[in-house]
């Protein structure tokens, strides 16, 4: 089998991510094989014979080799898991059984009910400091199914959306109707954080919460200090609290 130019790398190390290295190794092996088969020099191969000989089928075969080991990929977009459930692991269907779902982040700070009848069930990074906290009813929005439901029937008044998607597109048609947002991912600079700021919607990003179910009355500490840029460079992070209102 032919040697590749990059095979002699004085400083190179294999990447720490096993999947990246597995794919990278499989592709470089493929390139070596096809280069040898081509019987041309590299300059004729790289944008000539190689473009013809290294095919989509080759990459499909690499995917098959990985799946044949029993490995299943993690998914990030719902469409990926729904179209090809056989190649993706994790059966967490974000559209199903929201009535019984709750985020259960182990790092969420929780507490007993305080004098105002609120029990802390987590925290997050406040996007913009506001004069008052936001109080409303928690409703999970995790898939396009629920977005369509709210497009048809309207977003119930006082909804504080609990979202795990830090993007700005999933909730695009309904976002402006939220009374608050608790997002389990991203940072205050994520698209959802940017849009919450634009709309003036109280919003906590990168929230770690436990025990909040659809329909629970919650309060988010929108009056807390907002997350400063410095905090992302090792400064002290000021976190805003999330409470369940129990009475």
């Amino acid at each position, binding site marked *: 089998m032919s040697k590749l*130019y*990059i095979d002699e790398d*004085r*400083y*190179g*190390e*294999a*990447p*720490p*991510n096993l*999947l*990246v290295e597995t*794919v*990278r190794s499989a*592709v*470089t092996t493929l390139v070596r094989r096809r280069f040898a088969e081509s019987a041309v020099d*590299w*300059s004729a191969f*790289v*944008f000539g014979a*190689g473009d013809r000989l*290294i*095919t*989509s089928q080759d*990459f*499909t075969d690499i*995917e098959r080799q990985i799946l044949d080991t029993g490995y299943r*990929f*993690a*998914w*990030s*977009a*719902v*469409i*990926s898991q729904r*179209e090809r459930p056989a190649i993706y692991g994790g059966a967490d269907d*974000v559209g199903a059984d929201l009535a019984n779902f709750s985020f259960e982040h182990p790092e969420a700070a929780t507490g007993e009910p305080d004098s105002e009848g609120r029990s802390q069930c987590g925290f997050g990074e406040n996007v*913009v400091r506001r004069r008052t906290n936001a109080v409303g009813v928690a409703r999970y929005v995790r*898939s396009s199914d629920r977005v369509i439901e709210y*497009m048809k029937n309207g977003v119930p008044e006082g909804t504080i959306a609990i979202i*795990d*998607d*830090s*993007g*700005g*597109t*999933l909730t*695009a048609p309904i976002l*402006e109707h939220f009374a608050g947002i608790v997002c389990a991912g*991203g*940072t205050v*600079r*994520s*698209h959802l954080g940017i*849009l919450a*700021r634009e709309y*003036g919607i109280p919003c906590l990003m990168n929230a770690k919460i436990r025990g909040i179910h659809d329909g629970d009355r919650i309060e988010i500490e929108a009056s807390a200090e*907002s997350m400063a*840029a410095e905090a992302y*460079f090792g400064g002290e992070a000021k976190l805003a609290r999330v409470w369940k209102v129990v009475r």
Partner: protein
Amino acid sequence: MRNPGVSYPQLLETNNRIQNCGDETFWLCLTRTVQGSKLFPVSPYILLSYLNAFYRYPSLLRKIEARLPAEQIADRARNMGMKMQNSALGWALPNFYLLGRELLLSLGMLRPQDALEDVVYVMDFWKRYMLSWHRNDGHITNREFGHRAQILPDRRLEVFHRDLYPCTPGDPLHAAAHAFLAMASQYGFLVSCESRISLTNSGPYRLDDHHELIVRDFMDLAECSLPWLDGVAADVPYNYLTVPMSVRDCHFTIVDDWGSFESKPEFTAEHLAGVGLYTSDPLTEGYMPVGMASRDELIGTLRSLHGVLKDATNKLWLRIAAWTRDQMLDAGALVYYNIIKDLAHVAGVFDVDDWLTIDRRADRFRPLLNDEFAGQMLGSLVAGLNLPNHRQSPYVMMQHSDQPTRTYTPLPYSVLCGEEYVPSCGPVQPGTSHLDLKVDRYRTSAGVLSLAEYNRRAREFTPALCTDKYRFLCETWVKYNHHTALANELYELEQRESRTLRGRGTTARPR
């Protein structure tokens, strides 16, 4: 021994640009964003777009320059609000290309010296464009200027400033502007498949001790060169909108090469103190006011646009929600890759096959682009820098990280002493798309045109301010020649559509 088609100074300069791009990309990706999407397979489409950029940008930029040089296109960009600013030109053009190159290097499909003349050309095109676009602030990038972008000529700033309508929280204009800005931003994220490339900010410019001007552009709003807007955006009357904003008691500390900003205190609607609204495109004489004849007209226009964009958002979202993964992958990859397509619109050489298909050399990688691999590989390419090609000698301390790594592989100088290299990846090859074909309908300032007509008009049109008579009349010249008839003529041209300054010429001095 092959006679190299590039010189030592060219390689030195190219490698300097590559290194600068790499350092800034690392900083931007590490500090400016954490994105995720349940709707779009974002990382897979980003990798696909990088590959398409690598295989196609060199040929397409040469095609554009055969009609109009980079520096002249940038002269146009300095006088309008199209998608030829940040992040499109300031960051994406070189970095999408270089990230595609780095990805292929990591897979053993390239050597550092392959496509060497392409790399030199792409980086040179970018440098010439940026020098021209940024000629008023004298930097190549916002990074070089300490993350600031003072692009506009003084005469345009005077018009933006004087024509602003003041507003305060609670008044109808403030409410209309606030609602419009939020809706247009939201629509932009959707149009761009969860990326921020449909909006950009430039500035700040000092208005007085308490006010700064920030200029926000919204791009690709109407039925134009993104096929998924066909039909759903039929009622959107402008493809590009520019909103100059006066901001009170808020200092913009960062305006980066992605067109996003940070300020102290944080910018919220309460700080919005004045607003204007303009449109522009390859067929306009620079910025044209929209609904600016009166305060009431502007309020009505902003409200109307809010409604139109809300309707388009709902229709577009329902269209996207019904897409297959391949359609989402293509739309995301294309909107990313064709982020520089407006160069072709201005040059009048836009071609659907060039900008709305995935080159078969890139498309073959599609089976590898599952969510997990793409996410991890993208992380390695832009932030982890842990692929073998990233690793450097242990003595190296990279900017921002002190690690022995480099975002991008430099071009090897050894080609100058005989090491063999391949100059180019070759011409654009046939491409594919799973999306509906683009309808031959392009919303422009001259109405809805066919592509052939749009290209023809763009080729035949040069805005007066960009003609040879005026384009070199720079701020230094105006400073010492403001009393001349020619300077007055230049200013009157800029003021033609101004409500407050029309006909004032250079007699109206900045406040």
